[in-house]
């Protein structure tokens, strides 16, 4: 790095002030009125060239005054001639790329990050006693023991380097450069440099920045490329986790879709492992065709309610930094389904909801009672009762119907269904019900069942990859047609359009009215595997949407905290360990996969972090143009394990501070100007001998 640079470039912008003497001279010359005088004869007799001499001296003085200001401003700008002179104090910021891509293999059996850290250590060893250095990471890592600014303490710097570990995150080059510029800006050394140690992955360094980094004159920028080794194996990235759309119930199995991507040209065969907070482990083989993505379903179960998490990792490819993801969710308590009637009134429905009866397999426990004893504060979230109980309740049962309505208003789900034995005729429905049953009908050949509202939440567990409800080839032999008036909505119907399942929102709850008894004599639905999912979908519908847990890609900026408290505590619940507490503004991001709690005052936020799939992309900036550096002046060199980086660095700490010579020149101009501006009095001409 050679050339001139200024440490205080502000003064360079004041250079036009050097023209002030000339401007003042011209201004006052215009303003000055000449003094009338009878004759200039005596002056010419004194010295015929008096005028020419005077003008020459005047312009010389002006020139010297201009030079004086020029030299002073240049001296104040502290120009430094890089690459020349005996050297001076060095202030250096080492910007180490600790993003996920740096965990790939480098030279000498080390990871690229380890190689970068070793090179940085060499650089620090080459610093002189009065030199200062600081470390900035591309991905802010709360676990790294970094000094907050520049320090001459080499031991502390080396200790900080030892604490730098691989991350699974992408970083922002612009933000890291900004941090490095701010840190180097605090230095007062003659030579100020930022040294970047990176593999220059295209994803980060080959992209034009949204906001070009601001150039700071006087600061050198050197990029030291860490060579990347070619990996023969395909790389598989874990790109997404798809959690169930409904709440996860304790003791109930649920399915998580894990999406794996293989951007490489060869097919990949990997193993997907998982580990939950209870220590349960599992794994599954997965084949990911080349340049495709695959969903791998994983069935999990949380035994207890509360915040639960699962860590997934891919095993079997050669790049680990994009292989992990954490999922966190809130597991709700086991649910109750209350049947108001005899078990025979509900066909196969109780069995579909709770095959074991105790909720072990489905998370739903079934109990039976009578409509007479039903109270609105029933603990169950789901209540089923036969149509007969409602239609034949009579005026004396208005209290029970009122309790049922209140139950709905509070958010419960009620299913009204015909008994397999049939429906008694007559009776009236309550006024608040918009769905009314008609008389029982039949079809000896069976009518096909059709889904009328595919988007309804009770089908959430029945949808395939394309969003279609997997409820096919169901034949209906007996049915009670339903009349669904607004606001009720039909959900299931027969092929000719008869509605056999409708829903009506009542307060916060949902009333489901069925025209089918869940018995094989009525339809083939109870015999279908989808019936279990449909039944449980109806029973769990009242639970609404699951409690969401923030999900982040490692390295993404953190959002969601109010930012009102001064201190913030971050702690890992699972995955990569982290225990950090400090000023809220200093915590930027999570660099590694895990489940974390963030406490800011009384506010707590849980975050599940997965690795950045971008880090597995194996394209690196070639040549000397690094787009992410924008218009900043920089140099790019490659560090090889054999040559080392030290000679290059030492060459750069030689520079010549031109301030003193310029200051001396300014003083010389001042002296010369003083001498010219105050000449000795002219001596009289000697009298000629006569």
């Amino acid at each position, binding site marked *: 790095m050679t050339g001139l640079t200024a440490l205080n470039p502000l003064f360079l912008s004041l250079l036009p002030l050097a023209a002030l003497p000339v401007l003042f001279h011209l201004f006052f010359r215009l303003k000055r009125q000449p003094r009338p005088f*009878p004759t200039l004869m005596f002056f010419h007799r004194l010295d015929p060239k008096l005028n020419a001499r005077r003008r020459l001296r005047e312009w010389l003085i002006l020139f010297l005054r201009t030079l004086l200001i020029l030299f002073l401003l240049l001296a104040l700008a502290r120009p430094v001639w890089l690459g020349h002179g005996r050297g001076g104090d060095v202030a250096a910021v080492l910007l180490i790329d600790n993003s996920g891509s740096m965990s790939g293999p480098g030279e000498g059996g080390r990871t690229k990050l380890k190689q970068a850290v070793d090179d940085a250590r060499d650089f620090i060893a080459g610093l002189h006693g009065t030199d200062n250095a600081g470390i900035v990471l591309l991905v802010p890592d709360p676990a790294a023991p970094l000094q907050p600014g520049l320090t001459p303490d080499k031991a502390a710097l080396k200790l900080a380097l030892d604490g730098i570990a691989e991350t699974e995150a992408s970083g922002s080059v612009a933000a890291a450069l900004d941090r490095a510029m701010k840190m180097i800006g605090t230095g007062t050394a003659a030579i100020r440099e930022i040294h970047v140690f990176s593999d220059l992955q295209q994803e980060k360094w080959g992209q034009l920045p949204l906001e070009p980094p601001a150039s700071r004159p006087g600061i050198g920028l050197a990029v030291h490329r860490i060579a990347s080794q070619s990996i023969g194996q395909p790389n598989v990235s874990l790109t997404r986790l798809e959690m169930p759309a409904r709440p996860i119930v304790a003791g109930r199995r649920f399915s998580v879709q894990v999406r794996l991507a293989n951007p490489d040209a060869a097919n990949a065969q990997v193993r997907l492992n998982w580990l939950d907070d209870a220590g349960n482990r599992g794994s599954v083989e997965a084949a990911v065709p080349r340049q495709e993505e695959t969903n791998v379903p994983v069935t999990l179960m949380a035994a207890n309610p509360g915040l639960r998490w699962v860590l997934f990792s891919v095993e079997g490819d050669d790049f680990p930094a994009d292989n992990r993801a954490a999922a966190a969710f809130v597991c709700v308590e086991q649910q109750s389904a209350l049947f108001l009637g005899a078990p025979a009134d509900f066909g196969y429905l109780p069995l579909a909801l709770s095959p074991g009866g105790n909720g072990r397999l489905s998370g739903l426990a079934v109990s039976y009672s009578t409509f007479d004893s039903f109270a609105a504060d029933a603990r169950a979230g789901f209540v089923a009762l036969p149509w007969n109980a409602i239609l034949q309740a009579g005026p004396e049962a208005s209290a029970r119907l009122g309790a049922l309505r209140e139950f709905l208003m509070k958010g419960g789900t009620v299913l009204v269904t015909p008994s397999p034995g049939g429906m008694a005729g007559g009776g009236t429905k309550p006024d608040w019900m918009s769905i009314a049953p008609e008389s029982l009908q039949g079809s000896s050949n069976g009518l096909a069942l059709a889904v009328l509202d595919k988007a309804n939440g009770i089908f959430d567990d029945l949808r395939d990859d394309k969003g279609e409800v997997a409820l096919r080839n169901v034949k209906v032999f007996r049915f009670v047609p339903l009349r669904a008036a607004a606001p009720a909505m039909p959900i299931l119907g027969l092929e000719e359009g008869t509605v056999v399942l409708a829903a009506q929102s009542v307060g916060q709850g949902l009333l489901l009215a069925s025209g089918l008894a869940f018995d094989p004599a009525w339809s083939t639905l109870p015999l279908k595997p989808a019936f279990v999912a449909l039944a449980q979908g109806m029973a769990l519908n009242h639970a609404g949407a699951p409690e969401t847990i923030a999900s982040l890609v490692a390295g993404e900026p953190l959002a969601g905290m109010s930012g009102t408290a001064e201190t913030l505590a971050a702690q890992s619940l699972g995955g990569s360990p982290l225990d950090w507490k400090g000023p809220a503004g200093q915590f930027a991001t999570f660099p590694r996969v895990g489940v974390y709690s963030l406490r800011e005052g009384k506010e707590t936020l849980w975050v599940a972090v997965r690795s950045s799939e971008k880090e597995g992309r194996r394209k690196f900036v070639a040549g000397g143009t690094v787009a992410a550096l924008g218009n900043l002046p920089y140099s790019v060199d490659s560090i090889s394990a054999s040559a080392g980086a030290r000679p290059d660095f030492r060459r750069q700490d030689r520079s010549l501070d031109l301030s003193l010579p310029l200051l001396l020149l300014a003083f010389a101009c001042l002296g010369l100007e003083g001498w010219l501006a105050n000449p000795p009095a002219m001596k009289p001409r000697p009298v000629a001998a006569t």
Partner: protein
Amino acid sequence: MNAPAYKFLPPELAGRLRGLGLTVRHPVEGAMQGLHRSPHHGSSVEFADYREYAPGDPPGSIDWAIYARSDRYVIRRYQEETNLGAHFLLDISESMRFREAGLHSKMDYACYLAAALMLVLLGQSDSAGLTLFNDEIRESFAPAGSLDGLRPLLLALEEIKPSGRSEIEKALHQTAEKIQRRSLVILISDLLQEPAGIIRGVQHLRHNRHEVLILQPFDAAELSLNFGGLAELRELETGARLPVAADEIREAYANEVAKYLDEIRRGCLGSLADYHLIDTRAPVEETLHAKFGQL
């Protein structure tokens, strides 16, 4: 002596001119009898010398007393007294406009001097003419021997507007050729030209047997620079400009002026011309009394 109220001859000045006289050291030719010796011998009362009688001489001029003692016919000769013909040669160049330390500008001061001396000359039965010049002779007035005759001259003085460059030597030469009778030539000028040329002109006048009186009005600010710092001077006659650091050049300038005046003085002395340096800071009548009061 009652003078009308001319600008340059106010009554108070005219009244203070008593006791002043102007005469010449060499004979001059005049048409009228006056105070000054004539080169012609005649029947004046002032004895001059004797000469031998020659046929044709009037017998009445024979000094019979000498004849009685020496038996020789001797004619007694007497110095003829005549009136003085004076010509004022007035420099009206631009430089005469200058005034800084003086009571008047050099031009005005010269006009006061001329008017006063004209009146003095008339008072002793002499006559006075006037020539105005700068780079050439601009206007001439024939000598006047009375107050009435002097009127156009005095009015002409009031009309003067200094302008142009002065060519003193040229004016002197022209005047020398123009005046036939031996006269008194009074040059009033600041003489801001090389002394050698001026002296040549004076010598021409002297060669033609004219008496020469030179009056040089000078502002004190010309003799020594009375300002400090850097100033740009503009020459009145040419408009030429010169930036001058006064403090730096003050001593050398004063020395140069003194040297110049000395050259003028020596030149006049060598040419038998009367020379007076007039300080314009002094009142006119005071100057006149100082220079001409003893006569």
